[in-house]
């Protein structure tokens, strides 16, 4: 009776509650390959080529790209393209385009083509093959369209086209690096790209700070709110589905740099040497930190030099003046030294000064791009990349960013789950409650979904799923309940149990011994009686 009821009861009350987690699936996620499909269209505007040329070209292109698609065992890029002749409407646009000598014709054509929206919703990469009379050099447009001149026959375009696709639109090398890095390959040499940008995060806090050490002399004003709306608005809008970016601004008065600039008599200015710049950040850091959210914070600081150190310039390692007087600190933000004219002699103090927000924003927007991980444009000699201008980010750059971040999210969410699974497997007496089980399930299915979307070429959905995956996996990993009962050394367990069991065990053992004796003696009596 005691055994029948007691043992199950004891077993039930002492087992640690652990939800069954999909361990094998998690292990699979970490090793399985990610396939990423890129759709593109080649539109031939040059009327010299007929349908047969086109199909030959299509075959050649396919061969070339298929051979290249295997970036790595763990990451495949599959290029799916079609080649077609230009529609009448498009040819009409081309005719309006003037010859190659006139500037900006490509820019206009690029824009017109985009506005015409002939290819479904402009979501595919498009390459236009233009007659050489209209274009002399490959141009990467602001949206997802590139323009190539048909110098010789179509076959000669295979090489530049696949270069554009593989190294400009889909930056394969960078993509692989972020992917492997997020997966846990941390032993490579540190490099600028991976150190500079913040890791993928659901939200960022951006703070613009105006530092004015002498508000009694200079009343520095900036229209930061308008400037953010005007210059940053489009970027924030473009990124709003993917990341929460909150923007704040503040003015800090009576705070200097913390280091003394060196006077340069030949240039008649003060200079901040390159190697001293890190200490500039240390001095102003206490005024910047956000106490509200846990998002990474990006700080952008405009420093108006005090009158006794003006004009102030930043010098590089060769003692040359910097062109912008600005510097960037990886995963932190940027600083701009903004020199203003000294007030005239008879001015009433404080003298009012207005900052040119375009100049300020040009620098900060470029730094913000780098810090968020938008790859710097690699313009090589034979390709012109049209600047995004006030859009700040071209559509293809946004695609590239999304793709990189999506791969990073997938890899790091899978690595997080793996770490969690390993932790839970190693420590047997840790409780896994239903919430954690649920979050893990959500994360696993979101990773799978994201991979599926990638293999369908649906980048937007893939990113949103991967974001969900990372949020859920982090929530599971950092769940506060995973800490209790982390570790009990064996000797401590004995120390707990012995005072409890020793007093009980002595009479129990003694009585067992005496009962054994008694049974034996009974047997002997039986033997005797026989």
């Amino acid at each position, binding site marked *: 009776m005691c055994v029948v009821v007691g043992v199950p009861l004891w077993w039930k009350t002492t087992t640690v509650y652990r939800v069954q987690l999909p361990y094998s699936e998690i292990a699979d996620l970490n090793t399985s390959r990610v396939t990423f499909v890129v759709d593109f269209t080649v539109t031939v505007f040059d009327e010299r080529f007929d349908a047969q040329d086109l199909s030959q070209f299509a075959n050649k292109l396919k061969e070339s790209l298929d051979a290249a698609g295997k970036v790595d065992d763990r990451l495949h890029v599959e290029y799916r393209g079609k080649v077609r002749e230009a529609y009448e409407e498009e040819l009409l646009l081309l005719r309006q385009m003037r010859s190659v000598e006139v500037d900006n014709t490509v820019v206009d054509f690029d824009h017109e083509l985009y506005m015409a929206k002939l290819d479904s919703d402009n979501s595919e990469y498009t390459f236009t093959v233009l007659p050489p009379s209209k274009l002399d050099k490959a141009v990467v447009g602001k949206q997802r369209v590139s323009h190539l001149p048909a110098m010789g026959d179509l076959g000669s375009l295979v090489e530049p086209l696949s270069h554009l696709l593989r190294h400009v639109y889909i930056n394969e090398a960078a993509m692989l690096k972020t992917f492997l890095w997020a997966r846990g390959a*941390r*032993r490579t*040499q*540190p490099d*600028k790209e991976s*150190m500079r940008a913040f*890791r993928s995060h659901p939200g960022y806090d951006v703070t613009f700070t105006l530092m004015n050490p002498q508000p009694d002399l200079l009343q520095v004003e900036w*229209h930061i*709110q*308008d*400037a953010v*709306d005007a*210059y940053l608005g489009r970027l924030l809008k473009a990124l709003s589905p993917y990341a929460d970016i909150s923007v704040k601004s503040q003015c800090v008065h009576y705070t200097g740099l913390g280091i003394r600039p060196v006077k340069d008599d030949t240039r008649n200015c003060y200079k901040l040497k*390159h190697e*001293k710049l*890190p*200490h500039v*950040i*240390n001095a102003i*850091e*206490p005024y910047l*930190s*956000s106490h509200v959210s846990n998002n*990474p914070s990006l700080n952008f600081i405009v420093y108006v030099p005090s009158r006794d150190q003006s004009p102030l310039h*930043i010098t590089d390692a060769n003692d040359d003046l*910097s062109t*912008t007087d600005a*510097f*960037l*600190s*990886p*995963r*932190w933000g940027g600083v701009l030294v903004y020199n203003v004219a000294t007030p005239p002699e008879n001015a009433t103090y404080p003298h009012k*000064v*207005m900052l*040119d*927000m*375009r100049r300020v924003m*040009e*620098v900060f927007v*470029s*730094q913000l791009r*780098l810090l968020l991980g938008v790859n*710097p444009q690699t313009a090589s000699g034979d390709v012109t990349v049209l600047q995004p*201008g*006030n859009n*700040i980010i071209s559509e293809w750059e946004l695609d590239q960013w999304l793709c990189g971040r999506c791969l990073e999210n997938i890899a790091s969410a899978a*690595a*997080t789950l793996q770490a969690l699974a*390993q*932790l839970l497997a190693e420590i047997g007496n840790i409780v896994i409650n239903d919430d954690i089980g649920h979050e893990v399930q959500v994360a696993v299915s979101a990773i799978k979904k994201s991979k599926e979307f990638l293999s369908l070429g649906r980048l937007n959905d893939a990113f949103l799923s991967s974001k969900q995956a990372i949020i859920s996996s982090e929530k599971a990993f*950092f*769940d*506060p309940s995973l*800490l209790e009962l*982390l*570790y009990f*050394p*064996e*000797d401590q367990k004995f120390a707990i149990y012995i005072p409890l069991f020793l007093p009980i065990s002595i009479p129990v053992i003694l009585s067992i011994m005496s009962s054994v004796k008694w049974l034996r003696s009974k047997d002997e009596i039986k033997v005797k009686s026989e």
Partner: protein
Amino acid sequence: MSGSTKMKLFLSYLRFSFICVILLNCYASGQEMETMEQFFKSGHTNNWAVLVDTSRFWFNYRHVANVLSIYRSVKRLGIPDSQIILMIADDMACNPRNPRPATVFNNAHQHINVYGDDVEVDYRGYEVTVENFIRVLTGRLPPSTPRSKRLLTDDRSNVLVYMTGHGGDGFLKFQDAEEISNVELADAFQQMWQKRRYHEVFYMIDTCQAESMHQKFYSPNILAVASSRIGEDSLSHHNDNTLGVYIIDRYTYYALEFLEGVSPDSKKTMGQFLQACPRRQCISTVTVRTDLFQRDPDKVLITDFFGSVRKVELSNNYIQLDNIPLTIFPSQTCDGDACEKDKGNEKRIQRGPRMQYADPFPVDSYIKGVSVSDNSRH
């Protein structure tokens, strides 16, 4: 501890040392990369510090002085308060027994006031528990925890962890109530490593038998130093008669002395710091563990852990933007005719209602509204 756990630890230790050996080889083969510019020299971009004093009561004054010494140094060398987690189990500066209120000194001659002007304690008094400490390291904090109490490190963070208190072989006591074992600590670091919460860790402990605390570490990239060997006591430096208690521990005293000679742009190395307290001064043997650490401590700047020397990069390229007139006030760049012209083209930027601050001292409205019936005096 069971044999199997020991075996496992030993195996994992073997594994990591093997990886370290391989890496050292790789590093040696990549010597031509030595000419890297400043940006690359170390792989971290930010610095954090977790400083813990685990003991309370007046007679443990010296432990508070220890932790404040390190706090003072890292703050002076550039780590901002937002990136320092300071855990102090008792308040010595404002203790009624302190004859010099609001000060904590590093020696009886009142040489350095390590309490300083602004000390931001993140976990104090009974908040200093093993649980909270492990939670801070592993990041498993309740969602309501404010940012200042979190260790928001990433894969590019160098973390300094300093602990002081009363310890024994394999544990450090927290507040006479509980203790953290060396296995728990090692597991916490491993979890940080797995979640990529650090790039490198410098672990420093000043307690009796301190070596035992870093013996069980098995995660890579940890450099550890302890004030004494197993079986040895860590001793205090000297007694202050006005306080009636010992004022600071030997190891930290000499560490502070060394750190006082370091400036943010100093070229002193961790190797020098690890020898800051020889046996004749400390009376205990300072032990160092370098097998998990991939770089040579003699080539690691001390400011890689104690300071916050950020990497910088001049931004010489920028995107050119078209000017968008911000039209509330005429900008300084236009005057006369140019302004008139701008006004014609001006494009008002759409945005919500402008926010305004509430008047903190509404004197005017108070006087206007109340003066009529201002008969009663309060």
